[in-house]
């Protein structure tokens, strides 16, 4: 079984390594300091199981996991994360709270081995990742030309639905992310981002004006000149947020 340990504290990694040393057939193929390294290592080694910390440099464990298409089995190892405990109760293979004992660790491994169904679907994680902890996101992590790119929500002009993906427009570029419009509608600050149309979410302070484009439809014009249609339900929502 191929294993990767991702944690920014060397001692925390050595703890996992130590507990793992009692097992045969468990090969640690990589140790990573952060989500960027983790992302690359997972792509390269295609591990069966990863041990993943949540609070790490640059991007969190959750954010890293979002970017990976063929997700390995995951055992989270973290010190303190109350909302995540809730979210993962049902869905992750296991969730180890630091510090943990060999017994507790063994139990997690047993669970992992028992789970023969290797097609642990992405949707399981999707459901978990989409629970979103009721916290509003202030950034989005995307893959771009093989690299990881962190976008601050303040830099987003608007979002557009794109089949199973959402296109994220910023001043410089367009990124895609495999998420639903509903996810973004809920994850972003509703005073800042408004779903003005089935296919569009715009950042309110990017709007310069709104006008009638024909008898039926209103459009919003953004600072960069982009025109976004406003739907019958979207327009009143936008007006409510703008206070007009």
């Amino acid at each position, binding site marked *: 079984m191929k294993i990767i340990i991702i944690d920014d504290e060397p001692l925390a990694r050595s703890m996992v390594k130590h507990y793992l040393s009692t097992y045969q057939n468990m090969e640690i193929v990589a140790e990573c300091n952060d989500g960027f390294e983790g992302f690359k290592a997972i792509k390269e080694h295609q591990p069966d199981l990863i041990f993943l910390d949540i609070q*790490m440099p640059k991007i969190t464990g959750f954010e890293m996991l979002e970017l990976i298409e063929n997700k390995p089995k995951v055992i989270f190892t973290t010190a303190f994360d109350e909302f995540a405990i809730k979210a993962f109760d049902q869905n992750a293979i296991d969730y180890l709270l630091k510090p943990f004992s060999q017994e507790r660790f063994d139990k997690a491994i047993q669970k992992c081995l028992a789970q023969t169904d290797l097609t642990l679907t992405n949707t399981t994680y999707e459901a978990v990742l989409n629970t979103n902890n009721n916290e509003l996101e202030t950034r989005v992590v995307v893959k771009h030309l093989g690299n990881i790119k962190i976008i601050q929500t303040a830099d987003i002009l608007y979002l557009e639905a794109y089949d199973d993906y959402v296109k994220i427009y910023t001043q410089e570029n367009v990124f895609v992310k495999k998420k639903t419009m509903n996810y973004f509608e809920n994850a972003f600050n509703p005073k800042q981002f408004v779903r003005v149309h089935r296919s569009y979410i715009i950042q309110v302070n990017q709007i310069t004006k709104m006008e009638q484009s024909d008898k039926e439809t209103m459009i919003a014009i953004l600072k960069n000149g982009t025109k976004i249609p406003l739907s019958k339900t979207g327009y009143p929502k936008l007006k409510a947020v703008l206070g007009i």
Partner: protein
Amino acid sequence: MDFNQTPFLAFIDSLISNLIIVFFSASLFFISKNYQPNSYQIFHPIAILLAGVYGSFLLQKYAIFFVVNDLDYHQFVNDTSKIRLVYNFLMIISASMISFIWNYKTNKQAETQRNTDNEQLLREAELLDLRQQIQPHFLFNSLNSISALLVTKPNLAQKMIQELADFLRGTLKKENNGLVTLSAEMNHLQLYLNIEMVRFEHRLKVENNLDSSTENMLLPTLLLQPIVENAIKFGLYGTTEQITIHISSKIQNDMLFIEITNPYDTEAHQANKGAGFGLNSITRRLYLLFGRNDLLKIHTEENIFITQILIPQKTV
């Protein structure tokens, strides 16, 4: 009617009348002391007043009838009913005005006193609250590191337990709202830093550059640790490379000036957002202690995040 008797009767009359008015005014005073009518109950105090005026009038009349056994004088009392009513009315109105104002003033004073007491209590509670509590993250991660060290380096584990214990002791001290010398605060901070340096090994470096003249200057206890914690968090979580945190102090305008710098990554963080809570509570704490909002300043220079604090030194 025997007119020789009249001055005496008039004296009796006025004595009875005025005593009764005093009695009624005093009653109204005590009523208004405990009873503050709402604005929509305006009818109640007026009814009480009018009842008082009329009641005192009746009481006066029958008291005089009872005491003075002179039918002519009784007639005289009946004839002067209107004047007596008006007199009672004026007397009782002015007495109740005075009671109202008096009671209002004492109530206000008591209220102001209560508010001051409340504010003082709140301020103390808030100060206690603003003092940085131990971050659970820090505590559990440290325990995890100790757990790992026990396998490979038990001696180091023991040292770390020691330092963690000393650090916790310092943080839990009761008299934590006082002022401490910079060198004492730095000792406490060093315990924290030693633990963090074990956790992050080579990735974390700290350089102190303290002016020796500032060693005995005073600052609120446990002020620096949350700032340094912030610096470490944003420094380390922003980059995967080694970071160095600089702590320096000097005297500026007779005040203690402390500067803490850490590298941070503009891409991963919005500077103002992440730095927010910890530093806000410090600004608030400094405000409660020194009444100034400008003692903590942050700014960024390229990829360096700079926190500057000024601590006024109270002259003894």
